[in-house]
């Protein structure tokens, strides 16, 4: 018995030694990695983490290669993934973030949203004050006007730029161009004209409108321009900066009223919309089940594989206004890039961003992502590469359509509701006729009050 016991102890001791041995190896591995970093004084390594969505990752791989060529001795590692947020979260928490991140604030991983709350960015103001890569002008003059001052890039209202714009998106309502051309239907300029098309929609065996039911945030593409059209920048700022009084105004009720009208009018909302996710609803739209749907300039690329009705062609309408003498609107937004605060190579990362805004890179981006970067004349530079519908979107914006931007401000820390989310969640209840516009506004007043308390 006793000898057995001793054998067992011996076995355990061996096991423990083996385990210790393992951990030693790990330490050693870490050491060599550290020394690798030190010797990188000349051989710098830049970690770039990018969201791989509708724009793919080919641009980033090529850009990295070009950057390496232009800066001998540097190595750029690009990590591209549709779930990049989940991949970099542990690295950020461990204090070892990538040097450059491209990930939007609205990404479901919430990583960018969290970093905004946390003030976890490197200040980029000096990058934009400095000269551009290929021209002797300040970089900020090459970016589309108004973008760097917007809440997208300067989230704290302190005059400092923390995020760098990448692609420029334009969003609004879409329709089937073939249908409108063949049947001689005029595209609506105002909401009244749009609702008047309901009978035409019915004749053509489709509903007037559908949206991405389980992802109701897409309705932002209607609501923000509608508020702007009714109440101007002042009302819009009230809504986007969580002023509760906004929801007591006529503007708010009238803007929300669009959705109630869609809910109440016969044939206006496609049957079952509320239960459909974005792919399902967008497919239904393309199959001719609905006349209009909100989406952005990436629509054609996103749905390249989806079934569609015969002769379907993407047409971009924008967002109607409320009076006939106002131009039709479109909502624009910027894809966001940033350098996390604890990044190992912030200077090199800034250099990489500067390089990205050079004309050559902008062209490369147009070629590989079929999109326009938020630089002055961005869509002209890349016109050859854009798909027809995307080009039409940008062209429409250039020819009279008024492109405006607006983004909900970050909520102060300690607020446990996301007002934007609550706002659009209610849409389902309104569409199901379980809630009136007045109740919707009252609910939002309450939520905004909560944010106001913590300001």
């Amino acid at each position, binding site marked *: 018995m006793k000898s057995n016991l001793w054998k067992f102890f011996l076995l355990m001791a061996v096991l423990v030694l083996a385990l210790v041995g393992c951990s030693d190896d790990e330490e050693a591995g870490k050491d060599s990695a550290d020394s690798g970093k030190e010797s990188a004084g000349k051989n710098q390594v830049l970690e770039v983490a990018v969201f791989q969505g509708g724009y793919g990752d080919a641009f980033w791989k090529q850009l990295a290669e070009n950057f390496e060529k232009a800066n001998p001795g540097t190595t750029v590692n690009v990590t591209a993934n549709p779930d990049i947020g989940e991949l970099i979260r542990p690295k950020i928490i461990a204090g070892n973030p990538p040097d450059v991140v491209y990930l939007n604030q609205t990404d479901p*991983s*919430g990583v960018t949203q*969290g*970093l905004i709350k946390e003030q976890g960015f490197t200040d980029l103001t000096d990058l934009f004050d400095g000269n551009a890569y290929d021209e002797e002008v300040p970089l900020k003059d090459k970016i589309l006007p108004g973008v760097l001052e917007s809440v997208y890039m300067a989230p704290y209202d302190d005059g400092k730029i923390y995020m760098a714009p990448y692609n420029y998106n334009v969003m609004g309502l879409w329709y089937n161009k073939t249908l409108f051309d063949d049947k001689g239907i005029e595209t609506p300029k105002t909401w009244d004209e749009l609702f008047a098309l309901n009978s035409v929609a019915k004749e053509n065996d489709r509903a007037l409108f559908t949206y991405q039911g389980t992802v109701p945030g897409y309705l932002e593409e209607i609501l923000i321009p509608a508020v702007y059209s009714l109440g101007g920048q002042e009302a819009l700022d009230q809504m986007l900066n969580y002023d509760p009084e906004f929801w007591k105004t006529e503007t708010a009720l009238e803007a929300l009223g669009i959705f109630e009208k869609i809910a109440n009018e016969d044939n206006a909302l*496609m049957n*079952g919309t*509320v239960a459909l996710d974005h792919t399902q609803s967008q497919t239904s739209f393309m199959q001719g*089940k609905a006349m209009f749907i909100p989406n952005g300039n990436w629509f054609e690329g996103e749905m390249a594989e989806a079934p569609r009705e015969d002769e379907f062609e993407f047409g971009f309408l924008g967002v109607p206004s409320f009076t006939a003498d106002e131009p039709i609107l479109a909502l624009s937004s910027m894809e966001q890039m940033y350098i996390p605060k604890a990044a190992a190579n912030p200077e090199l990362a800034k250099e990489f961003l500067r390089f990205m805004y050079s004309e050559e890179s902008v062209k490369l981006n147009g070629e590989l992502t079929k999109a326009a970067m938020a630089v002055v004349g961005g869509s002209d530079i890349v016109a050859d590469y854009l798909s027809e519908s995307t080009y039409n979107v940008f062209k429409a914006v250039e020819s009279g359509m008024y492109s405006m931007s607006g983004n909900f401000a970050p909520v102060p820390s*300690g607020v446990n509701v996301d007002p934007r989310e609550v706002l659009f969640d209610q849409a389902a209840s309104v569409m199901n006729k379980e809630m009136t516009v007045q109740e919707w506004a009252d609910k939002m007043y309450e939520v905004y009050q909560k944010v106001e308390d913590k300001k």
Partner: protein
Amino acid sequence: MKNKDRTLFILFCILPTLAIFSIFILYPVTQVFIKSLYSSSGFGSNEEFVGLANFVELFKDDIFIQSMKNTGFLMLVVPAITLFLSLIFASILSFGDLREKHLYRTIFFFPSILSFVVIGILWAFIYHPNMGIINEVLNWMGLNQFALTWLGSKDTVLWAIALVMVWQAVGYYMVMYLAGMDGVPRELYEAASLDGANAVQQFFKITIPMLWEIIRITIIFSINGVLNISFVIVIVMTAGGPNNASQVALTYMYKQAFVNANFGYAMAIAVIVFSVSLVLSFISNKITEREAH
């Protein structure tokens, strides 16, 4: 002396398990409790101690209350229906004279080997308001007014999700009961039928009491299963919609932690869910214990 050796030996034996248990279970669980007292975004810095403020907020948060109600509904309805159906199916397969017994056994068990995500996508299309098989069949039968938007209405969405979860789990528990039923001595049934007991009486007087220990375990399994499975099913099928009508506790926790970056708040939700499921398991254990013979 011998006793001391023995204690040492036992200590030594449990040491590895204890270490792993502490690192992977005790430590994270304690962290959940600690983090629930902080306001934090989950990115490491800017943590602020707020005491019980997160919990106070929680009980004023109508989405949280809604999500707890929804979770409670699923925890009540899904295990009850699942276990009842599993018992019935198991006894039919075990005692009935069906030649296709083995085929049914396989078919019923089949959903249990599918991934939850696949099940969610599958059923999202079955419930699809315009091209799903349910509404197509209803329309074909001329019952157009019953062809509802199953996942889009707050009155039907929870039942629709409950049905998916029952469908998924019935086969699994059925197999467990089948194994139990095979162990029940046949003489009991012979004696009962000699005394004139019919099949239903035999089911309630012999099968259920003999399986009672298995049933107790499956009740707890199934309640906890609901908690976990509902997360995947809801994320895939409805994303919590319409307007949070199908939001469950874990989806709301996930949303707060990783989408809204309110990590401390989310941990407070986790603490409540943890306590509730602990209490529920305890209660169900107590209730069923008294009835055991």
